[in-house]
């Protein structure tokens, strides 16, 4: 487990205050916040790499607040990986295995972790010419090799291209399921939280403004900041059913997404359980249903209107709660009011699966 209580950390020009996080053993938690919100410093404080000004830290059931990092039994992966440039991939992975350990054990563990991450073929190379994804895997392998009790990840996907990011995300999730290491990741990408985490904490101006299961935070943001930051919205748990064979590159197929009270048209890459996301600004609100190219055309009741300057969020009930974003000018022109029925539509391509 990873637990902090009332942690106060100085991060550059500002201070993180009263950070209390609780990740149960084997859990995967994410702290999300904008760039420069002190996420890295928070991880460093938990790792003992940067001293907190106040508060306490527990790892795997022990209080470690006063322990130096080398005694905390943790793995730490920085955003830029920070592989040791003077060592081969093998020696990077084996770095934390040095010491009294037998050479044979060391080699066996290096091979095991490299196998886990699919980087056996890289072992004898230097680290200078590795791709971003390869560096990421080596950094993870290096952190995992000494069998840490907890894993701390700093924006692990920020420095790789989107395609690699998707692959790595999937791998990391499998790895977590397999190894069961309690993991805390910081990210600025809410998609990471939806795909990976079972707990998410949103950091803003040095404080945690909301935490809970990712779906809940996504669906019920408790402040405008959280709503805007996580991209406010429509996240629906459900199942994908294919309607046609896949084609194109990447291969996609027409499909239906079944969720409680609602069925959506979409293009999908895989079948089975998934989360569908529809961004509020992709939902068109009109008085009457027009003939359009949008595959998803629904009737909905207006529950509530929330004006955020030039943008107004329209909270709807379409069998499932949905939120649409329209310009405040349009909302006024159409004289939208709570209790009224409206027509909403969005394209199949506006439904994103995660």
């Amino acid at each position, binding site marked *: 487990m990873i637990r902090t209580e009332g942690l106060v950390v100085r991060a550059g020009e500002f201070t993180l205050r009263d950070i209390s996080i609780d990740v149960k053993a084997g859990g995967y938690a994410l702290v999300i916040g904008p760039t420069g919100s002190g996420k890295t410093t928070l991880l460093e404080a938990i790792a003992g790499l940067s001293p907190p000004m106040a508060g306490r830290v527990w790892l795997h059931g022990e209080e470690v607040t006063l322990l130096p990092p080398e005694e905390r039994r943790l793995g730490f992966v920085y955003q830029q990986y920070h592989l*040791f440039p003077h060592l081969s991939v093998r020696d990077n992975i084996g770095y934390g295995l040095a010491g009294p350990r037998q050479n044979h054990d060391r080699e066996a563990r290096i091979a095991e972790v490299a196998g886990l991450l699919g980087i056996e073929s890289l072992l004898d190379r230097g680290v200078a010419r590795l791709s971003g994804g390869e560096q990421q895997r080596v950094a993870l392998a290096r*952190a995992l090799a000494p069998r840490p009790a907890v894993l*701390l990840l700093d924006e692990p996907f920020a420095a790789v291209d989107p395609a690699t990011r998707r692959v790595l995300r999937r791998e990391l999730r499998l790895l977590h399921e397999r190894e069961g290491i309690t993991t805390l990741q910081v990210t600025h990408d809410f998609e990471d939280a939806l795909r990976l985490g079972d707990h998410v904490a949103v950091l803003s101006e040095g404080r945690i403004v909301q935490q809970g299961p990712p779906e809940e935070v996504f669906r019920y943001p408790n402040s405008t900041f959280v709503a805007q930051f996580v991209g406010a919205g429509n996240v629906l748990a459900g199942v994908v059913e294919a309607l046609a064979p896949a084609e194109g590159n990447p291969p996609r197929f027409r499909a239906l997404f079944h969720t409680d009270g609602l069925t959506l048209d979409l293009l999908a890459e895989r079948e089975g359980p998934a989360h569908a996301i529809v961004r509020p600004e992709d939902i068109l609100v009109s008085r009457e249903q027009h003939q359009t190219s949008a595959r998803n055309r629904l009737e909905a009741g207006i529950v509530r209107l929330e004006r955020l300057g030039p943008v107004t969020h329209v909270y709807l009930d379409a069998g499932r709660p949905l939120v649409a974003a329209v310009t405040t000018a349009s909302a006024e022109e159409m004289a939208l009011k709570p209790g009224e029925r409206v027509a909403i539509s969005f394209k199949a391509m506006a439904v994103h699966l995660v």
Partner: protein
Amino acid sequence: MTDPSRWTRPLLALLGGVLVLFIVGPILRLLLMATPASLGQALADPEVRQSIGLTVLAATAATLLGLGLGLPVAYLLARRTFPGARLLQGIVELPVVIPHPVAGIALLLFLGRRSVVGGALGRLGLEFVGHLPGIIAAMLFVSVPIAVSAAREAFAGVDPRLERVARSLGDGPWQAFRRVTLPIAGRGILAGALLAWARSVSEFGSIVIITYNPKVASILIYDRFTVDGLGGAAPIAVLLLLLALGTFILIRALQPSRSR
């Protein structure tokens, strides 16, 4: 309108050519003075051999001493901000601007028999004026800024997060320094140390004041020049030049290729 490159290029080529000639010319001229016979004769001279040996020994001692004293300071300056950091850095770099005879006189006053420090060390058997320790002290004074600056830059070039990763992998602070920081900064530190060593070998102005005898190579050259003239000084000068060129090639080989 004339294309400015039509006259700037030849002008730059001319200026560059003059500069190169100005540096390479004297060096080549001196090398041409040397015949295998004259060099052999110079090497056969026991005073020359002793003098070069003394120079190499003293410069090596000064460099090692400079590293021992300077590396911790260099690391501190590269890694931490603390009150007085700028002052400390200024002090360490100060000898660069002090004229060498001035440094020699200052060292003489500080380490001489009649000074507090020199007197105390003298009673412990450590004599500076007119002895090897005096040469080493003078060399250390003029060369330590070079070693410390180079080491500071080399340390600053090692991302502190690499050390933190090492700590998270079970290293204590000293282990992380030894296994990560030092190997990565090593080339830069070594290049700086060689530069400091070459600077020590070339020192004349301060040594001539604190320890004229036994003579280091630069003083022997001066001594032979005043007594025997150019013919007596040149072969020894060539030997010292060859030593310096060898060191220079080593330093260049250590520097990363991008700055070459």
